[in-house]
């Protein structure tokens, strides 16, 4: 049993304990890094626990590993990284997700808007959608291969399918949860029909639509791995299947980690959408979250209020200047 995992774990735990005493702002990467270090340490220890001794014919004991440890995983990924295979496969997977997700959004958002707005539409289509939603995309694989063969289009079809239902359902819910006061205001000012939809319904629904897009993207990225195992010949899912067949489990785990990292990147990108002014109102303000930090943050909030208040208190805006 090697010693370094315990040292690293100790350092990580020490960081957690100290962090509570330190003032904000901590360097943002510190705590996640400590967690990652702890995770790698635990991984290594688990691997070592899973090895067993085997007495060779000449009497010596050899330790047989059943699961790759962190360092071996990194080494196992060296080849695909160096010869560009990993990049090529990652791009292939991301491409398929992008196209499939794009198709799902392009069809799903309008359909969701229609179903949400027109109650007859909801009555008609909602049962069918809710019945098809729980069918895992993986169950669609046989049909996908039947219809599209074993090309990119089969994988893209599966991604589009997987993303479509969360987007439609989310959009529909978004439209239905618009506070009625918005619609009343709009009607009051003479907005009707398509103009009402464009100026009020759609913008009001946007934050929740973005949330459903985010969830759908997560699902799409999960599905691509399964989709690529149906004998498509590139992509990260294919890499895992190939590594498994080649008995190279270091590469299997390394590919999984790559998939996870890219997933984080994709999520980060889509969360950037939440920062736009037109939708920012729909997402909880960091300052308004109820956390143990809210007391400290509230002080900051007060300062903002005072600034605006001071502006208003100037003679002329409020009171008649005497």
């Amino acid at each position, binding site marked *: 049993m090697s010693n370094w995992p315990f040292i690293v774990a100790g350092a990580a735990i020490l960081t957690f304990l100290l962090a509570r005493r330190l003032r904000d702002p901590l360097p943002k990467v510190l705590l996640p890094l400590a967690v990652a270090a702890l995770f790698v340490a635990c991984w290594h220890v688990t691997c070592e626990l899973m090895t067993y001794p085997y007495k060779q014919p000449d009497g010596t004991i050899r330790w047989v590993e059943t699961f790759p440890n962190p360092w071996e995983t990194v080494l196992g990924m060296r080849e695909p990284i160096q010869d560009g295979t990993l990049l090529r496969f990652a791009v292939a997977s991301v491409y398929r997700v992008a196209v499939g997700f794009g198709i799902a959004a392009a069809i799903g958002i309008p359909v969701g808007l229609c179903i949400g707005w027109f109650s007859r539409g909801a009555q008609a289509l909602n049962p069918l959608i809710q019945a098809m939603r729980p069918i895992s995309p993986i169950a669609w694989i046989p049909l996908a291969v039947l219809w599209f063969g074993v090309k990119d289009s089969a994988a893209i079809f599966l991604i589009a399918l997987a993303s479509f239902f969360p987007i439609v359902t989310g959009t529909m819910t978004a439209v239905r949860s618009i*506070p009625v*006061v*918005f619609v*009343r*205001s*709009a*009607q*009051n*000012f*003479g907005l009707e029909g398509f103009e009402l939809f464009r*100026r*009020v319904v759609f*913008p*009001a629904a*946007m934050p929740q639509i973005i949330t459903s897009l985010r969830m759908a993207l997560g699902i799409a990225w999960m599905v691509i791995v399964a989709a690529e195992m149906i004998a498509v010949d590139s992509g990260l899912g294919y890499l895992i299947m190939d590594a498994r067949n080649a008995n190279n489990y270091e590469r299997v785990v390394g590919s999984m980690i790559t998939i996870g990292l890219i997933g984080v990147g994709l999520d980060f990108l889509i969360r950037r959408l939440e920062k736009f*002014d*037109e*939708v*920012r*109102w*729909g997402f909880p*303000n960091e300052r308004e979250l109820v956390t143990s930090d809210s007391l400290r943050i509230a002080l900051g909030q007060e300062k903002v*209020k005072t600034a*605006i*208040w001071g*502006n*208003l208190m100037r003679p002329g*805006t*409020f*009171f008649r200047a005497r």
Partner: protein
Amino acid sequence: MSATQKVVVRGVNKIFPRKKEGDLVVLENIDLSVAPHEFVCLLGPSGCGKSTLLNLIGGFDRPTSGTVEIEGQAVLGPDPRRVFVFQEYGIFPWASVWDNVALGLRNLPKGEQHQIVQHYIDLVGLKGFEKTYPGELSGGMKQRVAVARALAVKPDIIFMDEPFGALDSLTRLQMRVELLRIWQQEKMTILFVTHDVDEALQLADRIVVMSPRPGRIAEIASVRLPHPRDLGSSEYGKLKNRLYELLGVSHSI
């Protein structure tokens, strides 16, 4: 007589049918008329139907029986000439202050729009905040945006349903002063719903006191005090007592 009145409500009843407990009578036999340029308050406790009455006059709902007429014409639906200012603001959080105020003016040429929007933003004291989004404004400021938006279309009537209810008491006082100033300057008819006796006394020309379950008009009191109103005068005190009496509430605790 009805031709000179801005709003005429005659014999209006509003009943909500319910399956189990029997129909709910929200409004019973309401008769009311509002003169042009008048500031009328609907005053009453919760459940007396004042918000429902406002919605009926504004066209967001239809009475079960009786008529609602504005300028001699029956009210069939919402209209930009009768603008609502809601308690929960109703301004659009996805649009800037400027875009919100310009909502009713979207069909006008750009130059004219610009002039009007800027005028009303200044009028409500939000100059400098044109590009700000509602998420960054305080409650009082958001309400000012709603008022500016309503005023910009130069409506005949403005309906206000407890518009200052979500604000703190200091801001409320400021907003009342502002509202009076604007009303005197722009001269439109205002129908104002509140449950606050002081608010009604400070603002209204006439106060329609309503009683609950079922909603009825108890009395219509005229307030003939000139603005600015002295909150300490004996006239004011007498009116206040009368109102509390009508509401059936003891005012000395």
